[in-house]
Structures are given as C-alpha cells and as structure tokens.
C-alpha cells in the first residue's frame, strides 16, 4: 500500500517553526507517524510540512517509543486495522506510549474501548465506546465541515470554540469524562478526547484549514 513509499526524512525532524525555539516542538524528539494499513498518511505528512515539521513514518517499536510525539492517523475499517496492529504488536506499543499521542479519525476510535464497526475490541485507552450514527434522516457518512465546541484545553489554544473542522466518518465516540470537545450531528458526540498523554480527534486537522493547523501546532507544543 501507499505507506511503503511514504518514508520521509529519516534524519531527526527539523523542529524549527515560526518564532518557537526548536526544542519546543515535538518535545525535542522525533515526530513519528505510525505506519499501518489504515493510513491517509500523506495528507498528515504534507500538513506537518506546511507548518515546518518533518515526521518519520514507521512501524518500528523502538523508534515509536523513543519519539517526542506520536501521531496515529487512520481512515478505513476498525476490525481490519486492529487485526493488523495486533499482528505486529503495535497495539502494545501504542498503549505503552508515555509521550503525547494524537489519534486522528479511525486512530482516535481505535484508542477507545470498543467499536460497533464489526464489533471490534479496541485499545481501551479512552473508557468510551464507538457507535454507528443511527438516524433515518441523516446522510452517513457525515462528510464535511462541522463545529467543534471545545473545552479550555491546551490542544485548542488559539482555536475558537465553534470553529469548523473537516469530518468524514460513519461512527462516533460517545461523550464521557475524557471528552474535551463535542460536535452535533443528529446527536452530540465526542469530537476530541484526552486522557493523560493520549489525545484523539475525530475530525481531520490535516484537512481543516487554519483551525486544524493550529491544533496540530498545539499538539506538537504540548
């Protein structure tokens, strides 16, 4: 698949960005994107490039666990993705991470407890279940720009509550104590979750114009 060819710079990430001291981005370490079978990795790489950051795409355990930041992207189907992660022990690697981890879209859902998508047990970092949108009058998947109503969290520094972000999904995480932002599509759901060093966003920050770019910068500055 696409990931084979997406190995970018293998040199330590260029961490300079704007006025930030270089050590402030990525916690001084490499920024790693987890390579697996459900990536839309290229878009994330390009988005990071636009904010002046090079990331490394890898499924190497040591490289992932020694990174300053871990990005866990994903588009695709939950059970196939979980199966792939388990076969390569990446499920354990991700759960063992102590540095900031950002799950995007399916990546966020896989950090939850269980997904209704093919009845899949996920990583269980966030104590919340992922359900299908159930509505006769809504278009599914939700595709497009919707408002994110944010709590006062560092991930949303400089991002107004109610900003629009880009979503593409048929499943959603319910609301619980880990919820740090919500969106309404027929019902309220968690569009962002946080527990300890783990963060997840249902929308695609890499495709969400200025708001998304700011959220990526914030994640790298955590």
């Amino acid at each position, binding site marked *: 698949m696409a990931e084979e*060819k997406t190995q970018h710079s293998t040199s330590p990430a260029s961490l300079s960005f704007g006025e930030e001291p270089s050590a402030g981005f990525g916690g001084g370490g490499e920024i790693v994107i987890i390579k697996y079978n459900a990536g839309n990795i290229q878009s994330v790489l390009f988005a990071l490039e636009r904010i002046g950051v090079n990331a490394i795409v890898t499924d190497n355990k040591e490289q992932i666990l020694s990174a300053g930041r871990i990005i866990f992207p994903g588009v*695709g189907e939950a059970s196939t993705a979980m199966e792939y992660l388990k076969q390569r022990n990446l499920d354990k690697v991700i759960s063992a991470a102590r540095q900031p981890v950002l799950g995007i879209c399916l990546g966020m859902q896989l950090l939850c407890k269980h997904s209704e998508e093919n009845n899949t047990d996920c990583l269980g970092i966030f104590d919340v279940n992922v359900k299908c949108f159930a509505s006769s009058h809504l278009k599914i998947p939700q595709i*497009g*720009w919707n408002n994110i109503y944010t709590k006062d969290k560092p991930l949303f520094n400089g991002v107004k509550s109610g900003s629009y972000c880009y979503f593409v999904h048929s499943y959603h995480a319910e609301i619980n104590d880990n919820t740090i932002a919500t969106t309404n599509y027929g019902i309220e759901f968690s569009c962002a979750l946080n527990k300890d060093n783990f963060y997840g966003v249902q929308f695609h920050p890499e*495709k*969400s114009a200025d708001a998304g770019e700011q959220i990526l910068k914030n994640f790298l500055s955590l």
Partner: protein
Amino acid sequence: MLAKRIIPCLDIKDGRTVKGTNFVELRDAGDPVELGIRYSKEGADELVFLDITATVDKRKTLSELVRKIATHINIPFTVGGGINTVEDVSVLLENGADKISVNTSAVRRPELVRELAQNFGSQCVVVAVDIKLFDGVWKVVTHGGRNPTPLIATEWVKQCRDLGAGEILLTSMENDGTKAGFAIDITAEISQSVNIPVIASGGAGTMQHFEEVFTKGFADAALAASIFHFKEIAIKDLKEYLQKENITVRL
C-alpha cells in the same frame, strides 16, 4: 451544524485549468495549483480536480500535479479523470489526494466502485454521474457527455451507493456551462433517494442558484467552475449571501 459545502472544480487539460460549455469549447482558466491555493484561501470547502487530458503520459503528469497541489492546500481535495484500477487510485493517494472520483470507468465496470471502496474506504470514493434528459427521463451519459447509456439516473445512483460509493457528484449536462441554474428537480429526487451526500453540479450562474440547490434541491454541496475561475462570484461573497439566507456555511 454540518455546513453546506462550496466546491470549485478545476478541469485540467495538459496541466492547465480549462473550462467549456456543455463539455466543449474549452478555454484556458489558469494554473491549477495557483487557482487551488487561491480558492483554499478564499474559503472553498473542498476542491475537485478533473483531468481531461487524453495523452499517454497523463498518469505521471497527473500524479506530479496532485503532489504539488497537496503540499500547498489545507482543505480536502478530490481527483478524477481516467481512473480505471485500484493501482491508479493508490498512486493518487500516495501523492496526497484525499478522495478520487470515477465516472465512465464505473459505468463500464461497476465492480470498480466496490473494489475501490473495499481497498480505500467509501469515504474516498466519489462517483461522478453525468446525466441528460432523454424524452423526459434523466439518463446517465459518459465520456464527458458524448455517449448516452441506457442507465436511469436514479437507479444508477442507488447502485453506486450499494457498491460502496461515499458521495455522488451529480452533473446535469442540460445545465452545465449554461449559468442558468442547477437541475433542481433531479438533484432533489436523487438527494432524497440515497443517504449518502450529493454534490450538485452544472449550471451555477448566480448566488441565488446556490441557495436554490441547497433549499429546493437538498444538495449537500454545490460545485461550480467558471463563475469562480473568472471571478464572477467570490466564494466569500457567496457564503455571506447564503448565511443571510439561513443556510449553514463555514465562514
């Protein structure tokens, strides 16, 4: 609330943006990368690039162009034109496309839609459906509108949904390039008959046309080309107008 999307479409031929009337009489509308950047800055919600080049080198030049676009643009974009295989799509996604659009190739071999949805997910698969009126019946046409097919538009759209299409890009050949408004009735019929998003295309000439296609046509998104390329309507003005008309847009 989920916003209605405004999508500029760039028809690409030999690396340049072109636009014609009823799919013929092409004229140059500029550099696609520059136009793409301009639109993303002006508040476009997505971009669609349709490659209508018919040369052998096409695939390579298209992937290079896609890469250039992807590095510069922070909104989703779809690429279409001459996609026949899973491999064609892999190349485009590797170069940064978010979605792909198939048209003639899906009519020729509907299983392609299923293969693409299975490999890349429905969210990635837009089926472009070009339609024309034949004795009062909307039927599917291919090859940029030149070839009629026996497919009834509403039935074909449902089949595409069943095969795993994530979105339908519906273009009325009766309206395309006329600037006389979208084909409201058939857009409404199709949008209400499937539960996947429908992007309406063909005929945008005024801001009222967009308002109509959202309120009366129940479109989830509206696509246009020349009115944006030739700066007849600015995206920001259009969105401000739609907001005044109580349509949810991203401003």
